[in-house]
């Protein structure tokens, strides 16, 4: 148990060090680096998808297939919960 604790602390500290190194390579908060895809969406959402809501246009039109997968995930979760809580014949 002790060995596991020591290993965990060592590993977690190393992981924290690497993550902190990595996040300082990112663009600072509030100034995204390249924005060509999002600017295209913002400028074209009204005349391409006919909606005023950029996020909905992304969710249901530009990336609608992801939303289908998302609905599938909810569907599979419901099916799984109903499968786990089914009444098992004895």
């Amino acid at each position, binding site marked *: 148990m002790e060995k596991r604790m020591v290993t965990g602390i060592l590993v977690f500290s190393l992981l924290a060090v690497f993550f902190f190194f990595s996040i300082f390579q990112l663009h600072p908060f509030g100034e995204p680096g390249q924005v060509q895809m999002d600017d295209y969406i913002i400028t074209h959402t*009204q005349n391409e*998808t006919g*909606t005023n809501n950029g996020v909905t246009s992304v969710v249901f039109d530009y990336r*609608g297939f992801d939303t*289908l997968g998302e609905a599938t995930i*909810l*569907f599979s979760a419901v099916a799984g919960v*109903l499968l786990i809580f089914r009444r098992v014949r004895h």
Partner: protein
Amino acid sequence: MTKIVRTTANILFPFTLIFGLYVIAHGHLTPGGGFQGGAIVASGCALLLVAYGSPWMFNCIKDTRLATFESLGAIGFITIAFLGLVFSAVFFGNFLTGSGSLFGTTPATGSTLSDFNTGGVLPLMNFAVGVKVIAGLFVIVLVMAYASSSKEWD
């Protein structure tokens, strides 16, 4: 639960329902959409569940019926995608935009007032996803609550 809680739930439930349906219906104009509004309505149903207890709710509405409703929502969603394949020759095609018909008007670019009749197939998809999320989240909560309250679980 006590009578106070039940009365409060009775009063609050319609407002929650209306608010959730509003969020679903205006998903293409204001923040929100099918998932958010569906979650709101499902939370309202969960409020009733807490107030009245799961056995009562389970007698009112069966989980199989809710699951059927959820399947219907999912089928409606994928059917709209297939209609895009039929009418605009591409899966998930937005075939209603600019077609002047239902939800077919294209808003002017820039800041506009809210015109409900826009968005192409997006309001329909919002509706289908809303039905799906209401039924799905509520059936999850209902089944878990009923299973934990039934006798065989002690």
